[in-house]
């Protein structure tokens, strides 16, 4: 099949083989409608290159080398390993035989970005299909080569041989691909190995390039060095939205080696060393305009309620208010409740705090720009660079080395754009690494939010009404998985204005909405004098969610006696992105001293067929640990247009001393397609801990973080 390869505009199939060498190539074609959707999600702008309909491809060279090309980025979620497993599984080659070429916009097909837990659900599935098709192509060729009946052939270890024959007569992949320029396209209809028969996928393959990390040899963006490279530092405004009133750069310009760059309010210094650049920026005398009146972290929740963006509200499902009833009739009046409860929950703005701050190396050479940067959206950042710099995307190459984490915090390319502007201005390669303070101030945040929930229930534990409204922090997870007897739940999301830049975060809205709902469920269970687990199960029909609740409770020992006074148990769960989670926590809480210590946390998790049990457990443990920060003490503080705690000394993140004993129970559903697991495991820990604190102390906490200044009686 003749297929144009859209890696680079104008590149033909012949060019591609010229670059990669002869061999066999299999491409995955996304239906056009889906490709368009992916494009719009990636915030593409007019004039940008249309999204490719090819989402991944695989090349087997004349030496038998297998190279996979994908636009996904590795930020610590271990997809370099899991995607390699998908290919190894279908091609019947060892993991070590596969090279995964990721996130280089000149070499890989368009990809909207690595977010929303889509890598496993979509990309892994596509790579299974691509590799399975490649195996079938090789089998066709082997049948000719060996003059054998195709059905009698077996593939193993990168070789094909006749079953029952001497393996020394095997033909290698390289022998079959020699001199070939063969391409094939596949789509979702290609048959793949069922999870029940997996031998490589589904196993705990170690991190494929782990050795590079434990030796310090892996080069992150911030580690790269180019010949003649200079260091840049940007002059930051005194507050958000401030403009330059007056500026004097003479002292900075007088410093040896320092070159001041000024393009309007974009000002900075490029110098041979990072300290010299910093000194020179500090020598710039500047007066900034005073900030406009802005809310502070002390009054943010009232502000959000009062600043709803008109028309920005959305129902819990695809717009509108409550979902229509299937029978088309108006909802019947909710049955009379024995208990009703109305409460408000809040979550603070928090910072992703990736340990590798934003960083980029930019090389502007002869109107071609190459940028190395840590981002979850390489093609999106290429678009952003094209717009910011006024050059076509075709002249920009974005390369994303495996990155020092993101957690949803690196969708943007601020450092890439800054480094590119400095490189263009000085005509030399430039490195720019944000300081921790810059990262805490000029990146975007997980939004703060206010969530109102009203509910009713009968004394037997039947939920009879549910209404939830979220201001600012998002829609995801707002819909409750619990049945409402005789009525429908109503959910509303209001976009609001807000003082801080907000964006994606690991399960951002879902974390907030799960916290509100699962604490509310606990409160209602207490009103009804029911066991919180029993109350949940009474209102749950979803088998997968029931199963994780039961598994977590069993592993935790829910219902057993507590060690002593001051100990409390809490449970919470939910579903997000086709994964199911339940978390139990045990805390020690003391109102006299204010101490809260999370002693134990058990999470049961179901994301369909498990791809890599050990890496999945690692993700779940890590998500619980990270989630403890937002649950207990992380909060961005701000006033008058500035962040007031932009340091790790003032913004507390979870440390070794905060570690509970953690246990993970995996429910491996080989009959269900694998879903991603980078996000959902974080949603259970905060409400489980909050409910455990109540159990221990009778203090009900409805704001995340719950105990930034200790527990107050």
């Amino acid at each position, binding site marked *: 099949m003749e297929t144009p390869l859209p890696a680079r505009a104008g590149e033909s199939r012949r060019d591609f083989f010229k670059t990669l060498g002869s061999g066999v190539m299999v491409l995955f074609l996304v239906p056009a409608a889906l490709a368009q959707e992916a494009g719009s999600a990636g915030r593409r702008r007019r004039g940008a290159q249309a999204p490719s309909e090819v989402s991944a491809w695989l090349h087997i060279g004349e030496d038998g080398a297998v190279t996979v090309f994908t636009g996904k980025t590795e*930020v*610590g*979620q*271990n997809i370099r390993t899991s995607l390699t497993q998908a290919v190894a599984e279908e091609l019947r080659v060892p993991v070590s035989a596969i090279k995964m070429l990721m996130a280089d916009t000149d070499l890989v097909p368009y990809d909207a970005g690595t977010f929303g837990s889509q890598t496993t659900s979509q990309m892994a599935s596509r790579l299974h299909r691509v590799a399975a098709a490649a195996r079938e192509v090789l089998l066709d060729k082997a049948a000719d080569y060996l003059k054998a009946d195709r059905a009698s052939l077996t593939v193993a270890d990168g070789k094909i041989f006749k079953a029952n024959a001497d393996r020394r007569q095997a033909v290698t992949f390289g022998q079959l691909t020699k001199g070939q320029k063969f391409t094939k396209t596949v789509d979702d209809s290609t048959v793949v190995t069922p999870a029940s028969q997996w031998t490589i996928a589904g196993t705990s393959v*170690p*991190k494929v390039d*782990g*050795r590079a*990390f*434990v*030796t*310090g*040899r*892996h*080069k*992150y963006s*911030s*580690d790269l*060095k180019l010949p003649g490279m200079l*260091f840049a530092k940007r002059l930051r405004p005194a507050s958000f939205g401030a403009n330059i009133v007056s500026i004097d750069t003479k002292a900075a310009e007088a410093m040896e080696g320092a070159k001041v760059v000024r393009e309007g309010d974009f000002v900075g210094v490029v110098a041979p*060393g*990072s*300290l010299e650049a910093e000194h020179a920026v500090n020598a710039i005398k500047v007066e900034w305009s005073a900030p406009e009146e802005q809310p502070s972290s002390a009054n943010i929740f009232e502000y959000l309620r009062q600043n709803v963006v008109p028309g920005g509200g959305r129902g819990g499902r695809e717009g509108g208010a409550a979902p229509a009833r299937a029978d088309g009739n108006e909802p019947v009046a909710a049955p009379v409740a024995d208990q009703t409860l109305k409460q408000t929950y809040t979550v603070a703005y928090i910072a992703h*705090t*990736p*340990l*590798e*701050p934003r960083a980029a190396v930019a090389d502007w050479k002869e109107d071609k720009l190459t940028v190395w940067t840590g981002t979850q959206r390489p093609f999106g950042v290429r678009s952003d660079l094209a717009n910011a710099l006024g050059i076509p995307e075709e002249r920009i190459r974005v390369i994303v080395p*495996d*990155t*020092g*984490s993101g*957690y949803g915090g690196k969708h943007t390319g601020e450092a890439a754009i800054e480094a590119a502007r400095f490189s263009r201005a000085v005509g030399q390669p430039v490195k720019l*690494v944000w*300081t*921790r303070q810059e990262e805490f101030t000029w990146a975007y945040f997980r939004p703060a939010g206010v969530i109102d929930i009203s509910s009713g229930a009968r004394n037997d534990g039947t939920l009879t009404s549910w209404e939830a409204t979220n201001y600012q922090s998002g829609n995801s997870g707002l819909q409750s998985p619990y049945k409402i007897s005789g009525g429908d739940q109503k959910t509303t999301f209001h976009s609001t204005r807000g003082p801080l830049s907000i964006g994606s975060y690991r399960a951002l809205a879902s974390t907030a909405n799960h916290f509100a709902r699962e604490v509310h469920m606990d409160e209602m269970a207490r009103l009804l004098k029911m066991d919180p687990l029993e109350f949940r199960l009474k209102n749950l029909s979803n088998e997968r969610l029931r199963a994780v609740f039961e598994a977590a409770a069993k592993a935790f020992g829910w219902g057993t006696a507590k060690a002593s006074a001051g100990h409390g148990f809490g449970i919470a769960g939910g579903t997000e992105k086709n994964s199911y989670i339940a978390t139990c926590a045990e805390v020690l809480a003391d109102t006299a001293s204010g101490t809260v210590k999370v002693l134990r946390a058990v999470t049961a998790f179901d994301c369909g067929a498990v791809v890599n049990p*050990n*890496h999945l457990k*690692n*993700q779940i*443990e*890590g*998500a*619980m*640990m*990270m989630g403890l920060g937002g649950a207990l003490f992380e909060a961005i503080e701000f006033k008058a247009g500035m962040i007031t705690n932009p*340091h*790790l*000394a003032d913004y507390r*993140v*979870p*440390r*070794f*001393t905060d*570690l509970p004993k*953690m246990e993970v129970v995996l429910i491996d559903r080989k009959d269900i397609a694998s879903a991603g697991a980078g996000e959902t495991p974080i949603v259970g820990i905060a409400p489980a801990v909050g409910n455990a604190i109540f159990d221990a102390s009778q203090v009900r906490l409805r704001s995340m973080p719950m105990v930034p200044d200790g527990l107050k009686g």
Partner: protein
Amino acid sequence: MSKVAELQVNGKTVPVSAEGERSLLSVLRDDLDLTGSKYGCGEGQCGACTVLLDGAPTRSCLYPVGSVGQRKITTIEGLETDGQLHPLQEAFLKEDALQCGYCTSGMIMAGYALLQKNRDPSENEIIRAMTGNVCRCGVYQRIIAAIREGAKTLQAK
């Protein structure tokens, strides 16, 4: 602060030409291409920049290179011998004690320093020694397991 002309790094005397006020981290990374030590906060709060000075774990982001003198610097690049990983590095792989890996060098160096002083640290001793090191991916439980595993291997030697 005067210029620094040489440093003792990973068992070798290395010539440099660096202003003494610069951080040891910057000189290691930018001048000597030893980029295994990372910048995480610049405030001594995260431990990603941890190196050893005469065996003592040190925050190289805050440490002026002019104060190093003849002290022996050990970085993550100095742990391998003849292409063989140090048992603690092996243990980090075995326990899958990393996700993004950005904190890993600092974690291994802090753990290595602990094992030099204490051949058989308890879990509480590990937590106390390591709590200045941040892993934002949250793999603390596995790092503790890796340090205990590394200790076991070293004792068997």
